[in-house]
Each structure stands twice: as C-alpha cells, then as structure tokens.
C-alpha cells in the first residue's frame, strides 16, 4: 500500500534525527514505526509513559503477557536493563526534561511550532493522554506526520485551528515531502524531496516558512525509503 510506504518513509527519516544513546518516547501512529527504521549504529533507550524504560519488541505469542504493555496498549517485552516505575515517576521524567527526544504524530502544526494532536474535529474529545506532558517536557520534539490529511487537507498552517497540545514546542517536523526545523518560533525548510519543487511544496503548505541557505534536496527513494 502506498499509504503504508509513505508512513514508513516518514518514520525512517524521523529515525535519522536520533543519536546513539538517546532516551526516546515514541507516540502513537507513525512514531511507533520509528524503532524498526533506526540507522545502523544507533541504539536508543525506549521509554513508555505507563512506566517502563528499555521497552523490548513485541514478544512471540507464547511469551506475551497482557500485563506488560506500552502506552499504545501493545504487548511488549523486557530487555536487559529494563526498569519499571509508577506513572508519577514516568511523567516526572518527561516533564522534568529527562527524555532526550519524543517523536509524536500531529493533526496540525503551526509555523511557529504549535502542535495540535489530540482533539479530532467533529468528535467529542474524551482523550488527551500523555501527549501534552511529552511535548512540554522532552528536550527535542520531533513531529512525524503526513504532509496533509487523508482527505488532502493541509496540516502545516499559519495557525492551528484545532485545540493545541502545546504552543511553540516543536523542534523538527518530518513529512513525506520535507523536513522543517523551528528556531525562535520560525519555521525553516532544511530538506526537500527531489520529487517535488519548492513551488509545489509551498502550494501544499499554507504555513509560511523560510528556506535554509543550505537546503538539502534529497532523493525520496534513497533517503525517505
């Protein structure tokens, strides 16, 4: 499926933002794919906000333990060096700035780095979870999202129209078409896929952004694959 491939490409590009040894929390959606797309030589420490460090991969069915899950309620496993803690310490770790990176999905991102990721339009909003704490607390916030919604609506906007998760906290934004960085609430294009022109990118990006003087043009097949 083209859609699945795009999601994987976004995850792989987001994974390239990670450094060896980073303590990382991966949000629901595309971010959960990041762990399978790590660059060679990059080992990360996975945190799950329901109270565990060193999250291991999904176990084989015979070893699955329904009490051992990640924040997406997926079955996980222990690794050497895993630790368990209560949700209070887990969020203290997040809010206190002890996570190096969170990779999180988005409904909308504004040009000043605001994130809207929890309240779906037209639905009663009955869930916020841990996203607000993650985004406020992690040292680096990487948003990994498709450039537009499934319906083709833009997600990168001058202002978010959906309820905010946090204001001005996004550091890096990775889509299937481009990579943006935020500095002093300015959105800067640092990387663009060779499959589209800057003009084409601007046409699908209502957010106003600057173009980095060393803009990288990358072959989507190579880098985003």
């Amino acid at each position, binding site marked *: 499926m083209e859609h699945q491939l795009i999601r994987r490409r976004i995850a792989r590009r987001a994974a390239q933002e990670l450094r060896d040894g980073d303590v990382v929390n991966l949000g629901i959606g595309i971010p959960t794919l990041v762990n399978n797309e790590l660059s060679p030589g990059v080992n990360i420490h996975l945190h*799950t*906000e*329901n*109270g*565990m460090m060193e999250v291991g991969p999904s176990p084989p069915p015979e070893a699955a*333990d*329904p*009490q*051992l*899950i*990640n*924040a997406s*309620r997926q079955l*996980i496993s*222990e690794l050497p060096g895993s630790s*368990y*803690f*209560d*949700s*209070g310490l*887990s*969020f*203290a770790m*997040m*809010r206190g700035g002890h996570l190096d990176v969170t990779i999180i999905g988005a409904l909308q991102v504004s040009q000043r780095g605001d994130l809207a990721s929890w*309240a779906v339009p037209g*639905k*009663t*909003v*009955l*869930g*916020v*979870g*841990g*996203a*607000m*704490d993650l985004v*406020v*607390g992690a040292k680096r916030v990487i948003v990994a999202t498709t450039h537009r919604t499934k319906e083709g609506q833009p997600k990168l906007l001058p202002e978010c129209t959906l*309820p*905010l*998760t*946090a*204001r001005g906290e996004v550091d890096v934004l990775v889509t299937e078409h481009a990579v943006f960085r935020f500095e002093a609430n300015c959105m800067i294009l640092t990387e663009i896929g060779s499959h589209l022109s800057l003009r084409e990118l601007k046409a699908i990006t209502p957010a106003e952004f600057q173009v980095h003087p060393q803009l990288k043009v990358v072959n989507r097949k190579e880098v985003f694959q």
Partner: protein
Amino acid sequence: MSVQQMTAKQAVSRIESGATLMVGGFGLSGVPFKLVDALVESDRRDFTLISNNIGTPGQGLGKMLNTGRIRKAIGTYFTTNPDVGEAYQQGRLEVKLLPQGTFCEAIRAGGSGIPAFYTPTAAETELAEGKEVREFEGRPHVLEKALKADVSLVKAHLADELGNLVYYKTARNFNPLMAMASHLTIVEVDRIVPAGMLDPEAIITPHPFVDILVTE
C-alpha cells in the same frame, strides 16, 4: 493502623454510594478486576471515578459504566471505550479530562499533603481554560489542585502480612499513587506472603498507605 484481610465482597461493602473512587490500571493492565466485579455486584452507585480510562466495552470499569454506577469520571483517555462517548453524549456521564502527567501529579499531591502545584503542561491550551496561570522562569504554568478520594481500589502483585506491596511490570502504573491518596485503600493482590518475605529495598508501597488486603 494494621491492615485487615477480607473478601472482595466484604471490602466493597465499606464503600458508600456517592463516594469518590480511585481505580488503578492503564488500559486493562493493573486493573483490580475482582474488586470492580464485586462493586458491580453490589448495590452501590453514583460514584465519582478517578481513573486513567474506563476499561473497554463490558470489561473492567466498562461494567461499572454499563450498569450506570458512574456519575462523573476524571481521567485522561476515555477514547478506548466508545460506551464512554455514548454515555457522555446522552448526558448520563460527566467527564473531566486532565493531561496524564497532571493527573498523576495531582494524585501524588493528594496523597502527599500538597494541595496544589504549578505545571507547564496544558498552559495556553483548552485544558487550562478557567484555571489560574502564572509565569515561572518566563513560561506560563497552570495551577492544578490535588486529587483525593474516599476509597482507592488498587491492584498489586504481592503483599506481605503487614500490607507492604510490590507490583508486576507495567501493571504498576497509577496503583502506587492511588494507594496514597484516599481515606480507605483496598488492595487486590495475587498472594499474601509472610512478613520478611519481600525484599525491604524493593517494596514500592509501604504498609502505612494500605488498609485492606483482598486475595480470594
């Protein structure tokens, strides 16, 4: 006070209708199912529930919802049970949503004698509406009040006879916090062991937080 051991049925008979209840668990991990079932079988109702989520349809706290016991729910993520949305839409259920870190911290505060604290989380968002905001280190922070309850229903793995608790993997989650934050803490455990059998360095909830142990 020394802890008491009793059945789930006896334990939940201590809970009054209209009480504020904390119930541990994240998803279906670390939920005190026996205590919830015993409560569903009782005639108690009209609860204010403090729990991260309300189970899934017909499971765990979902049973309490479906039998109309919950008047108000305070939590972070009710999306996993569509029955919650339905009850809310029909006006059968009041919902108060908190960011999960604020939810945890408010419960810990409730158990720790801290009536209120400031957090950067949710500042300048809808969830801060109507709340006091104050700047610290140049950043807006929201004043959040402690959460306390009449009764906590907690799931632990092992208890010793004194009531010291250890938990099991990610089933720990909110349970140790909730064990601190109510007048009556009822703990469902897999097994009770003699005092001295748990490693003193590894006890997560010391017994002064615990009132009743239930195994059955």
